[in-house]
């Protein structure tokens, strides 16, 4: 095991990835901590009180995994296309499509179809809806050469408008008070896997999905095609890879990931849809995927980090009286530094390649 890690670290790319990310995370937390000094709060004390609370209470500790669950999926939604050098920044919209489908199907079949089968049906339909919604972005990209940045971003606005429309009409709660749905029946809720907490089966599903996507990307011909398109699309086409088909399927898989995040929030945690909730789950997914360098396994750890920051941030607000915005300041700082680290990694890689080239020529 130790030898394996040593071998990994001998790869300069991997070493850069770990070092720059660790520095970025520490820098993000330190800078946001300095901000606390400005409002006369001792950051070390605040952080310590919050960390102690997280460590001493299993419910709060489990909240880290609970928060990480949808983030793993939105992280995967970005990461999978990222490996094909495509950018799906529409995970937020795909998430909302997932929540709408999950809640609508759960409410309509909840009392008819037995629990377990019902949940499987909801999950399957959510995947289909997300794959279609994401696949459409891939389709216009592949067939019409549309900019996937713009299309995926606009698809989020369409999804939000669609959700707002439904929450004011057919999906509106029976009480009719707020733009939110009714609560789904108990039979449609994912089982809790850690008693006394809110941790549900979805977390295991998220981890298994990440591992599966890793296997697809690195151990299957399709994954090879995705990465080939990502490394050099023209070369991939020359080599006989159907780039259009790969683009569409990649986006469909990404869309399904975003939608699955919605399914897990509805059937695992909130049991309902509230207008505009989880408004940052898509954006955080992008930060997570970049932090993981698009590696699905890395996404799990990056999502846990982001989940941890969120939970510690909330505890800091409640116990150390830091402003609520501090959690997002911390997340923002970490994300910013992670993105900056991406630039540094690139520079380091280019320099290394240049050096290799120079060394090669001088030989």
């Amino acid at each position, binding site marked *: 095991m130790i030898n394996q890690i040593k071998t990994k670290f001998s790869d300069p790319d991997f*070493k850069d990835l770990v*070092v720059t990310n*660790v*520095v970025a995370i*520490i820098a993000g937390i330190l800078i946001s901590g300095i901000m606390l000094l400005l409002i006369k709060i001792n950051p*070390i*004390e605040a*952080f*310590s*009180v919050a*960390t*102690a*609370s997280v*460590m001493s*209470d299993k*419910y*709060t500790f489990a*909240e880290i995994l609970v928060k990480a669950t949808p983030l793993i999926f939105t992280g995967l939604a970005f990461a999978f296309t990222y490996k094909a050098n495509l950018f799906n920044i529409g995970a937020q919209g795909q998430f909302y499509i997932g929540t709408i489908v999950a809640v609508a199907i759960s409410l309509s079949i909840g009392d008819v179809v037995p629990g377990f089968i019902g949940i499987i049906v909801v999950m399957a339909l959510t995947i289909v809806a997300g794959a279609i919604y994401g696949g459409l972005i891939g389709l216009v990209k592949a067939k019409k050469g549309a900019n996937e940045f713009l299309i995926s971003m606009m698809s989020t606005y369409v999804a939000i408008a669609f959700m707002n429309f439904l929450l*004011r009409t057919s999906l509106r709660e029976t*009480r*009719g*008070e*707020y*733009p*939110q749905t009714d*609560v789904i029946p108990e039979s449609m809720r994912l089982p809790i896997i850690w008693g006394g907490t*809110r941790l549900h089966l979805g977390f295991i599903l998220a981890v298994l999905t990440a591992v599966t996507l890793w296997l697809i990307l690195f151990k299957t011909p399709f994954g090879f095609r995705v990465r080939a398109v990502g490394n050099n699309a023209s070369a991939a086409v020359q080599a006989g890879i159907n780039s259009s088909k790969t683009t569409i399927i990649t986006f469909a898989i990404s869309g399904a990931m975003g939608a699955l995040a919605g399914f897990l*929030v509805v059937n695992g*945690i*909130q049991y*309902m849809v*509230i207008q505009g*909730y*989880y408004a940052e789950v898509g954006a955080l997914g992008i930060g997570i995927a970049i932090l993981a360098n698009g590696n699905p396994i890395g996404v799990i750890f990056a999502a846990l980090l982001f989940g941890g920051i969120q939970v510690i941030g*909330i*505890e800091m*607000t*409640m116990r150390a009286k830091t402003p*609520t*915005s501090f959690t997002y300041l911390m997340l923002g700082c970490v994300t910013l530094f992670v993105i900056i680290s991406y630039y540094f990694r690139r520079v380091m890689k280019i320099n290394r390649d240049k050096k290799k080239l120079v060394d090669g020529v001088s030989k």
Partner: protein
Amino acid sequence: MKGIFKVLLVVVLVLTLGACKSETDESDGMVLILPGPINDQSWNATNYAGLVAANEQLNTNIEYVENVKDADFVSTFRSYAERGYKLIMGAGSQFDTAANTVAKDYPDTTFVMVNGSIAEYDNVAPIFPKEYEASYLAGIIAGELTTNGKIGTISGSINAPMNDLLDVYEKVAEEGAAARGIDSPESFRANADSWSDVNKGKQMTQTTISTNNVDVMFVYANQVGLGAITACEEADPQVKFVGFSSNQNDISEVVQASVEFDFETFYVWAVGKFLDGTLEGKKVHAAGIKEEIFIPVYEEGFSQEIQDKVTEGINKVKNDEIDLTEYFYTN
């Protein structure tokens, strides 16, 4: 690499040592959970003012946490309950579901939702302002102000309490107008489906004024009302506006009277009930004119005759001489 690991080690040590501190006793804690910032000049600010008043007048030390997101309702409630807080309040009926979810596991903590309506457990005691009593007073004013009997209303959203308060407002205003000899008074109701869209308020008010010839407006939709007031001001002739929920008299000359919600009194009433043990659970506690949480406020020179009629209305409610629920017809 070694340097970085050293830094990491120091950070971990600092955190771990700090984490060994003992926690303070919080078993008597009270907290108010707010969905937005305390300086929003609207719902959250009003609730915060109530908290401050309760702390000053009842010598309590209610804490607050602002900007709590929907996704964190349950975990926030639970976290305070776990720490032994004896009173956890949530500002808004959107906390209903979360509070009832958490309450069953913490029987020693009382959960109070302001404007809430769901009380499934013995330790859940929502408090509810009988807004229809406030709109009764506004209806009396409108019935006296209208000259043609065309009454316009706009709501921020449609729900049962909103329907009730608009029902009472319209019927009372129509009765008042009819008593003054105005032939077949009529009401026109619209829903903005927004509590913040100022332009929508203006546009909807312009439409209802021009198509229905409305001459007195009433809006219960926070900032949407500001747009409505502008439209009333710009109309020719100007349209009168009855202020609601806060004192809107200073905004424009078209607002000569408002019915203000006194959340400070409301909070002092609710927290007082909690402290003396009369805020029993599994029950919605409603407060209104009798508890003096609705206060009519008038501009200088506003008709004394109308003011007297409003006072008469207040006394009718206080003496149980009128049953306003008989005016409900929508629900």
